[in-house]
């Protein structure tokens, strides 16, 4: 291996070493594993399975919570790879005791490195929490995440055959109460956080922030409690350095991976590739219990419905306006401006609209990144005498920095949208109920009090 790297113990071991050091501390493989895997040595397989499992678990929350057996781990890894579109049949055919297949695993690992920016994801997921963080969106909210994946729910133990509607109402009431308490608690936390930020303003050496975070203040108060934090910071620093090193040496690694493919091609020479891939049955071996397609289709249908309604609405308005416009034009033809001027004006309008629309199209086709993801909460006094300026903020991040007022506007719009949707659903329900009630003879339906 070293010989292939060019006659010296040089870039390849360094590249693999950097790669290993950039991985999180608990999941680091021995660099030798890679070499063993290239030649498909079975002793490397369990380690590679473990590696993949622990790395993917960090990125994808989910997977098996109960058992940690090799079997379930392997299934998790396979389903994640399936989720990302990895299509090598040999990989999915690997036995679930994890005894063989190190080369396949190496290939899968390298493919993941590229496909999901594995290293960057891991670095970002394992970021040491020393800053006051919050999120710009509610996508990652636990309260919402659990909804999307719920298909088969575990049966409730102790549930009688029938449930009184009042039990459901009671649960609902409890939920409302919990929300209210949460609200109160959150407001309290805001107050405390604000105080801490204001009090420590001006003391931080990092000028873009200016004040301490809660963790940092606690670090000052009780330095002894935070030894582990310091160690984590140190390890993160070394991981970042390894990452930068890896970026330099990346080409070497990928070239080496090609040689792995070559080696494999040689070994497989005798087997007929066509037999391996037998369409459906092969990939069907991939356990897909971890991603469910039903919800997706449901979502797509719902979205289609919404878009169709929107499209119809647009259609109506457009036809209406078009006819108006034509009439206007006809009416104006007599007292019209100069033909040239008119067409000029029209041309200008066309251009402006095109610009607007192209921007819109771009936004519709691409991931909206501005108001998403985690962010760091920073207090910035609007007082002009504040010694902190924006001068030092780094250019790239400055693009992404968000002000509270922007976020508030965004959230308000979202809130309005959701409220409308909820009201619509409730109306629908009410409407149907009245229908049902009307259909029942000698039954008076008393709807609940409107709060």
């Amino acid at each position, binding site marked *: 291996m070293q010989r292939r790297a060019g006659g010296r113990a040089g870039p390849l071991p360094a590249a693999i070493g950097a790669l290993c050091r950039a991985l999180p501390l608990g999941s680091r493989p021995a660099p030798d594993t890679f070499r063993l895997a290239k030649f498909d040595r079975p002793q490397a397989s369990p380690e590679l399975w473990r590696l993949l499992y622990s790395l993917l678990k960090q990125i*994808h929350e989910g997977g098996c*919570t109960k058992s940690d057996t090799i079997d379930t781990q392997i299934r998790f890894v396979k389903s994640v790879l399936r*989720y990302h579109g990895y299509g090598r049949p040999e990989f999915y055919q690997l036995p679930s005791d994890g005894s063989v297949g190190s080369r396949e695993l190496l290939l899968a690992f390298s493919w993941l490195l*590229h496909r999901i*920016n594995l290293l*960057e994801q891991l670095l970002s997921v394992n970021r040491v929490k020393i800053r006051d963080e919050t999120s710009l969106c509610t996508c990652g909210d636990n309260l919402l995440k*659990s909804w999307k*994946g719920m298909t088969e729910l575990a*049966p409730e133990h102790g*549930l*009688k055959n029938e449930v009184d*509607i009042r*039990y*459901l109402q009671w649960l609902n009431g409890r*939920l409302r109460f919990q929300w209210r308490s949460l*609200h109160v608690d*959150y407001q309290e*936390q805001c107050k405390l956080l604000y105080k*801490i930020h204001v009090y420590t303003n001006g*003391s931080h050496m990092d000028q873009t922030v200016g004040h301490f975070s*809660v963790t940092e203040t606690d670090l*000052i108060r009780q*330095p002894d409690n935070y030894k582990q934090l310091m160690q984590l*910071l140190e390890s993160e620093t070394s991981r*970042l350095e390894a*990452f*930068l090193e890896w*970026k330099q040496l990346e080409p070497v690694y990928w070239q080496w991976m*090609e040689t792995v493919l070559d080696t494999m091609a040689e070994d497989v020479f005798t087997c007929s590739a066509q037999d391996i891939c037998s*369409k459906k049955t092969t*990939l069907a*071996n991939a*356990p897909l*219990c971890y991603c469910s397609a039903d919800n997706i*289709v449901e979502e*797509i249908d719902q*979205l289609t419905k919404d*878009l169709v309604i*929107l*499209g119809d*609405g*647009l259609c109506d308005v457009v036809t209406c*306006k078009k006819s108006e416009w034509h009439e*206007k034009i006809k009416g*104006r033809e007599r007292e019209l401006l100069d033909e040239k001027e008119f067409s000029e004006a029209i041309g200008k*309008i066309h251009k402006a609209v095109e610009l*607007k629309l192209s921007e819109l199209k771009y936004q*519709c*086709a691409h*991931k909206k990144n501005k108001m998403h*993801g985690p962010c*760091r909460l920073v*207090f910035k006094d*609007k007082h002009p005498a504040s010694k902190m300026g924006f001068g030092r903020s780094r250019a*790239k991040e400055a693009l992404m920095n968000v002000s*509270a007022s922007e*976020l*508030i506007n965004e959230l*308000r719009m979202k809130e309005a949208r959701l409220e409308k949707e909820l009201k619509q659903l409730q109306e629908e329900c009410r409407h149907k109920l009245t229908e049902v009630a009307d259909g029942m003879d000698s039954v008076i339906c008393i709807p*609940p009090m409107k709060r």
Partner: protein
Amino acid sequence: MVPAGCARRLVSILNRALEDCAEQRRKLDHSLNQCQALLGDWKIHVPESPKLEVSTKSEGENEPAAKELEELELLTRALEKVLRVRKSVLETPLQTVGAAEGEKTSDKKPAAKASITEQVPVSKESIPKTIKVTSLSKKPVTSKKASAYVLKAPYRTDLDVKRSHRKAPAQQSSRIPRVAVKGSTKGTSSQQAKTNVPVMGRKVIYAAAGSQQACGSPRSPLCKEQSFAFGDSTNHENSGAANLQLANPEKNSPGSLAESLVTQNPMAGDIPEWSPTPQTCTLWEKRSLLKLPPLYRKTYSRNSRLWETCCLCQTSAAAAATRNHFVERIQTTFCPSTPTISPAEIEEEINVLHDAYSLLSHRFKAENTGHTTWQSEYECLLTLEGLQTTVSQCLNKLQQLRRAAESQGRLQACCIGDAGCPSADCTPFRGQQCGNMSVLAVPLLYYSSLQELRDITALKLQVAMLCQKINIQKAARSEAWQHEDQPGLAGHDN
């Protein structure tokens, strides 16, 4: 009564929601406790030597105890010298506390100068404490002289004085029993202090002060002094053991701390009696004085610089080329029946289309306003037409995605059977969290007032709650209308 079948789903949804809420509250409680502890009284550390050893170990220093005792000796001698100086100064007539302020500075200065020359560089926190001990256990000097401290104008004295007054009595009672040091002779107390140092640390100091309490008036200048000294620990002119005590937990820079301590010690000798110093203080009091430990500062700046570099780090062209080549090659070995769009991509595209939908409907509403000139009318017409085309494009894409999702589903369906996967203990994952432009960079959210922060939090919570309500509503609706025809069905959750 709701039949068990549909009730089960609703009940589990509601229970799940309650569990999530409870978990959020738990996390919130924990962080609230932490914040409240930070804003409340900070207990002054009584770093017994084991603690000290630990902290010094972490800093990589491991000085032998012998050296410590040596320095102790030197310091004690220095203090004794200063005391003698002080004694002579004490001959001057006493003045009122208020008037003493002017004198404080002058009185302090000679002593301060004396102490500065006798500074012994110390690197351990324990040493300053012992010094404090020895110095504190001086015989009572008249109050006015004792309050020979430099007052710093900006500091509010009254508040702090009141605080110390309040605290002092409380501290005394708790501290005195634990102290072995009593009496007023400096000799004995310093001896005891020396022996006690490894164990008692500041406890001794406080106790000594308490036991020698004379009158109440000295307390105020002392306490004032404390807060001032506290306010400016880097200023060597400022004396006050309080500075030591209070500053210690905050500043892990033993060097500067020790220096200030040394200068203060002679001053402390002037204190007639060391009134029980408040052993707690708050974040508010020390707010502008706090400094992060130097080790942390170093690590933090290194860390943030590295993050910056990593964010800006681009994949070199060579790396990209080799990587893509490998990936293409490996993709040729993929099974042909693999759908071209992976489930991850489908989900991503759906999210994009969700956003597109809201954007489009928002624009639609915006354009529906009245227009005055014919130009704006025409513009509006064109924009709406453009929106229409975009909507149909989105619809086409959705159809594509639907087909892809269906084929994935078919693939899944034939595997579920033979794989025999135990769906009971698997929680389906929905994919990665929403990302930023660059995964590595974390944007900053700037807020400038408490109200903004409150609004953000309240709105986020409201949005989450509304989403949950909508989900519950949808579930209830789907459950309810399954049994539409069943008579006698009571009303459902609305």
